[in-house]
């Protein structure tokens, strides 16, 4: 445990040191610190994960915080693992990525400082077990990420997005604050262990508190309808930061929800259904909006929402299993959810890093302005393809394993009787399939439009591949993804103790059954891989000595081949968007050609977020209009000011007179 803290401090001190390092050499220290930190963080983490032990250390603060316990149990260890590795990769990637800002008026030192601070805060969030201290590190985490988001602070839209993000985090924190304060008044203790008593109380209070917690953490995780900050903050941030935020940081929200479930159990059975349903909607909504996006990073942000939904489905399924005492289902659900947390970290970071390379080379995030990059950035393209296959849950890649676990859980929970449960599970099955196939649609679109086909913008052919510093983290992640995809048993044993925390009744046989299933699965994967190799070899053999001509694409009679004619992202998505039109409000700006000899005409269309469009914006404008009702007061007339006081006084006196004494 001490080791872990040392590692945590290392991240921070790396950030501190960066403040004193000249611009040219910035970044190396924090990268070194991050690398060094791994040696301190990983051993206790792996120990906790393997033997399920719980290490703890107590810090004595003065009141109102009081004594704060830092505990490292398997659950915390699992998230520490992700955060720590993510930290290392991010700081290496930043080395290469932030180069392009060297000659721009941005403070790199503060960037690295806040990066270190962010990782420190996240690590602490997972281990702190004291309500107040938790809130403190939680807020520091939000704050540090805010400063990272507004790195390019001279852009108006970046500042606006940053403020939006910070406000969203504040609202989430307000929910948590209320829940914590309520719990603290009920128990009189600030330690997490006291929460158990609160959440298991009879009556509605426990349910309300649970929902408050869910809302508070849901803001960070990005569950519907609390997700609206994600698609704004991610494009605004530097790509290295977006990767961290969506790969690592939003998972702390998941951690929070899991922690609450672990502490207090589920106060009311309906809550399991609520979370399951919300998660399902989140997943469908996220990917549906991703399909219509043209901004590469915004699209990836929506995919984070989708994957949070999938994780949520897993957790909700686990909760259902816990409620209905079906250990097997709970096991599958939680296992799938947790594994998907890890997988989403790996492939989403990979994808964002890939997008970062693309942005660094082409300086655009518009998918429709990209194309044919696979010829100039082969490695990036290949890794991006791996990420795309993984996030679409294709077999052979990690994404499939976790989704498979969730599917298995869903199917296993189908049982005669319990119509409600069956209906829920049926929706889950169909919904998850829907999510999966929409993800395929979206990523065939992204990958093909960005990397395949013809370049749409001149001189995108002669770009140089990203530097080794940029590629190294991506390669590492790619290998990780394929390994998990082929041999899931590499990571699954690590999750045993985490799941065991939730389902103490999980008997060895259950787990063994599960593992054998995955052994069969990886056998199948091996067969599939074998087949693929077989046919590749076969193809090569067949083509040996045969003429292979390189010729232009068959243009169906058109002789001119130009990228202007080839399909764009919008046209690729169009038929599907037509299906879901009511759920993606579209905003147009049209400038029709005018006059006999029109100089210019423009047509611009973008899709708004359903929730933001129909729910958040109206509410906020309502609030501001309400507050606007009071702004006539400050007229600058002394007499009027005195009149306020006079009226107030008279009202008081009358009230006192009429009050029964």
């Amino acid at each position: 445990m001490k080791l872990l803290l040392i590692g945590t401090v290392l991240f921070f001190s790396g950030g501190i040191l960066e403040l004193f390092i000249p611009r040219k050499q910035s970044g190396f220290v924090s990268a070194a610190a991050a690398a060094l930190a791994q040696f301190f963080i990983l051993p206790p983490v792996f120990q906790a994960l393997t033997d399920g032990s719980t290490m703890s250390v107590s810090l004595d603060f003065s009141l109102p915080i009081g004594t704060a316990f830092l505990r490292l149990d398997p659950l915390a260890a699992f998230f520490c693992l992700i955060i720590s590795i993510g930290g290392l990769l991010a700081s290496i990637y930043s080395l290469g990525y932030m180069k392009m800002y060297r000659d721009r008026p941005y403070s790199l030192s503060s960037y690295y400082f806040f990066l270190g601070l962010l990782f420190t805060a996240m690590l602490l969030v997972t281990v702190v077990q004291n309500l107040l201290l938790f809130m403190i590190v939680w807020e520091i985490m939000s704050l540090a990420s805010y400063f990272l988001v507004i790195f390019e602070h001279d852009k108006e839209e970046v500042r606006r997005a940053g403020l939006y993000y910070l406000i969203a985090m504040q609202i989430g924190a307000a929910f948590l604050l209320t829940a914590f304060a309520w719990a603290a008044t009920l128990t009189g203790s600030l330690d997490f262990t006291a929460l158990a008593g609160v959440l298991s109380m009879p009556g509605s209070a426990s349910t309300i508190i649970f929902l408050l917690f869910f809302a508070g953490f849901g803001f960070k995780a990005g569950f519907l309808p609390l997700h609206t900050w994600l698609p704004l903050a991610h494009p605004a941030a530097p790509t290295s930061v977006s990767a961290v935020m969506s790969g690592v940081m939003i998972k702390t929200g998941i951690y929070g929800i899991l922690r609450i479930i672990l502490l207090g159990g589920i106060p009311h059975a309906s809550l399991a259904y609520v979370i399951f349903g919300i998660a399902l909607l989140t997943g469908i909504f996220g990917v549906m909006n991703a399909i219509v996006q043209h901004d590469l990073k915004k699209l990836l942000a929506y995919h984070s929402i989708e994957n949070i939904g999938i994780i949520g489905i897993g957790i909700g399924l686990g909760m259902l299993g816990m409620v209905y005492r079906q250990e097997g289902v709970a096991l599958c659900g939680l296992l799938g959810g947790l594994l998907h947390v890890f997988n989403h970290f790996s492939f989403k970071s990979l994808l964002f890093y890939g997008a970062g390379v693309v942005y660094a080379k082409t300086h655009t995030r518009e998918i429709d302005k990209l194309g044919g990059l696979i010829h100039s950035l082969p490695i990036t393209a290949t890794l991006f393809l791996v990420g795309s296959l993984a996030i679409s849950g294709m077999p052979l890649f990690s994404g499939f394993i976790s989704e498979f676990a969730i599917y298995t859980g869903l199917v296993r929970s189908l049982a005669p009787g319990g119509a409600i449960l069956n209906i829920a599970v049926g929706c889950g099955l169909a919904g998850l399939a829907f999510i999966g196939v929409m993800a395929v649609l979206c990523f065939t679109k992204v990958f093909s439009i960005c990397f395949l086909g013809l370049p749409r913008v001149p001189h995108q052919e002669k770009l140089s591949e990203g530097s080794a510093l940029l590629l190294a983290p991506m390669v590492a992640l790619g290998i990780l993804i394929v390994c998990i995809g082929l041999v899931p048993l590499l990571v699954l044993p690590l999750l045993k103790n985490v799941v065991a925390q939730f389902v103490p009744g999980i008997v060895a046989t259950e787990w063994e059954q599960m593992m054998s299933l995955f052994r069969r699965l990886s056998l199948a994967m091996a067969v599939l891989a074998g087949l693929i190799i077989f046919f590749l070899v076969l193809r090569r053999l067949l083509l040996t000595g045969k003429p292979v001509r390189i010729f232009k694409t068959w243009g169906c009679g058109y002789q001119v081949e130009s990228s202007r004619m080839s399909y764009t992202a919008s046209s690729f998505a169009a038929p599907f968007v037509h299906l879901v039109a009511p759920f993606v409000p579209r905003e147009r700006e049209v400038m029709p050609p005018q006059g006999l000899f029109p100089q210019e005409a423009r047509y611009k269309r973008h899709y708004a977020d359903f929730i933001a469009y129909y729910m958040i914006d109206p509410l906020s404008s309502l609030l501001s209009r309400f507050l606007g009702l009071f702004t006539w007061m400050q007229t600058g007339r002394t007499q009027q000011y005195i009149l306020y006081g006079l009226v107030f006084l008279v009202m008081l006196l009358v009230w006192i007179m009429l009050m029964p004494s």
Partner: protein
Amino acid sequence: MSGILIVLFGTTILYICAASRIEAFVKTLALQGLLLFLLIMIDVHELNWLNIAFLSLETLLMKAIVIPYFLLRVIRRNEIGREVAPDVSQLYPLQIASIIFIAGFLMAYWAAGTGMVVQPLYFGMSISVMMVSLLLIVRRKRIITHILCYMTLENGIFLLSLSVANEMPLLINLGVLLDLFVAIYLLVIFFNMIQEMYDGNNIDVLTELKD
């Protein structure tokens, strides 16, 4: 006897509501000072001569003679003739003031029912005088008038304080002294700064700061 004086005191403020000439206002102030002095003479018994002397000094000398004299001189010098609000009719303040008076009397007698230890008339009248002068401040536009209204407000408070003058004269002296000081302070600010920085002395010039 004291009752009559108090009612008289009340009528003075009614007169102020109606009056539109600053001079008349000032003279009424002097009259109020005189009335208060008489009230002290009649009502306040069990005080040592020092306090009596002090109180009468304040009322008779300051309120009734010095300040009005000074004010009249300045007013004449700066030709501050009328209250500038020809559009604002003097009728409404008068009616409202009389309503407030009725309220004050009712309050006094109702409070008398609750077995309290103060002469009800003092209480009701002074409260209503306060309210009326605050109302006047809200109604009138001239800064000088505001200050004068503030002084009537003080007189009203003084009236109230007389009801406990026997118990804690020190408090009364303190309060009255400080109020006088503030009044003079305000007048000084007005005549030295506002007069010379703004041409008109209408309160509307002081509405630059706003949101």
